């Protein structure tokens, strides 16, 4: 894997919230096609790390490079870089004033200048993929949480991103809806999408993750395969965390 260039390169990143170091010298390389799951207790900095990859959080020090483009270089347009990164949020954040279809076509039409019929065809294909084609014409508030999250994934995919970022995509869902969202994510993983997921769903991690990254107190403490974490986490805090969530 080291022969290819990483698609996301995070090196020596620091981020402070006041005195607190939310990210404390974090480095991580993600290679094309890789699925990485980031775990850790709340406040460990895992969401902050994910959000700094598309610069929703500004880091204080360090370098983040996506697809060869430095996020903080003046010559790079952050909006163009963000188009390469699909983001899925814990709280879905669909646009409530737009229909499901419009949620999916808005960015491609406006930002990629894709003709409307083509954008809508693509949107229908994606809605079919996440199993929610029949809801194309309704407003997001008419959907269940699981349906909204699947639409949100489809919306991110509509921009044809190189990497998908998932920020606790199932944490706000009722238990019976978690499965339908994870199914979509597994399908996506099988298709070879590069994915970085902050999640506590260890079943999902075991099924698709190439690497699991354990974070605590703003630092990456351990990196390994899912099996490694299930069987023999080395770091005491990782061990304790795994005991708590399993």
């Amino acid at each position, binding site marked *: 894997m080291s022969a290819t260039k990483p698609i996301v390169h995070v090196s020596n990143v620091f981020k402070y919230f006041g005195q607190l170091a939310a990210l404390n010298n974090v480095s991580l390389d993600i290679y094309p096609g890789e699925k990485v799951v980031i775990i850790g207790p709340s406040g460990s900095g895992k969401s902050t790390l994910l959000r700094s990859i598309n610069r929703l959080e500004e880091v204080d020090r360090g370098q983040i490079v996506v697809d060869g483009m430095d996020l903080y270089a003046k010559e790079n347009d952050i909006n163009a870089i*963000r*188009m390469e990164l699909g983001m899925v949020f814990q709280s879905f954040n669909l646009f409530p004033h737009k229909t499901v279809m419009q949620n999916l076509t808005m*960015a491609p039409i*406006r930002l990629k200048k894709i003709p409307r019929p083509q954008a809508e065809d693509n949107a229908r294909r994606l809605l079919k993929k996440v199993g929610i084609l029949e809801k194309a014409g309704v407003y997001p508030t008419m959907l269940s949480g699981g349906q909204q999250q699947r639409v949100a994934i489809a919306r991110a995919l509509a921009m044809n991103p190189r990497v998908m970022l998932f920020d606790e995509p199932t944490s706000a869902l009722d238990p019976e809806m978690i499965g339908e969202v994870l199914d979509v994510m597994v399908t996506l993983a099988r298709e070879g999408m590069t994915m970085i997921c902050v999640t506590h769903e260890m079943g999902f991690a075991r099924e698709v993750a190439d690497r699991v990254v354990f974070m605590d107190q703003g630092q990456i403490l351990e990196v390994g395969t899912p099996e490694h974490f299930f069987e023999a986490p080395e770091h005491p805090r990782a061990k304790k965390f795994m005991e708590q969530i399993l």
Partner: protein
Amino acid sequence: MPDKQEVRIDVSDGAAIPRKRDIGLFSAWWISLIGALGCIAYLCLAKPEPYLDILKFLPDGILVTFEVTILSILLALFLGLITGLGRISKNRTINLIASTYVEVVRGIPLLVQLFYIYFALGQVFSNLPNPADVAESMAAWPGIIVYVVVGVVGFLKDMPPLVAAVTAMGVCYGAYMGEVFRAGIESIDKGQTEAARSLGFNRRQTMFLVILPQAWRTILPPVGNEFIALLKDSSLVSILAVADLLRRGREFASVTFSYFEAYTMVALIYLVITLILSKGVSAMETRLNYYVRD
């Protein structure tokens, strides 16, 4: 996910906007409207002279009242949007300018602002050189610039009362509207901005495509309320010899000495207009809620 709180911006100086659930206010609305219309009808039938004459004399004034109100609200919306965006701007200077505008305007009574723009600034502007002299002194300049400068000088030098009235009311209400816009924009969940930005929309696109269309739902009721308040305050412009509803009533009264009759009709007509408008605002509010599941 934290439940998003429904934000309601209450403005106290407009008309009360009736809400469906609010039975008491609802019936108060009907009593007022039917009462006012009934009074007008009864007075015109029972005593056509002078009431019917007054009713025929006032429509021109109603038109002017609406003209002043609509032009002022358009200016206020424009200034309000800019001010609201300025108030949430991270740029310290822009923020300070917007906040200062709001602070200053809110501290000066509207009537004083009207006097200030029409009489005080009017006096300053009247000292401007003659447009013809300006044209002569600018002979070396390109024609189009001369044309514009001369036009502006001529316009300011002899400022029509309507322009002064609309400027004063627009500037004044723009400050209030700025607060409405600011609160409306801030009422939208931060996740909306993050979702839009993460798709690749820039700040401006995010504001105009995602935030404002949603904020509008929160903004509209107070804007409607401000519109009604503005319509009532527009009676102040009668002092600048703008022939609005109140001014027409006063004209009728001063000729016929029927002060009681004229002002009674003026008051009733204002009441009917604001009652109907407040109903319209609440109807619009309901329509704008189309995507919210109840």
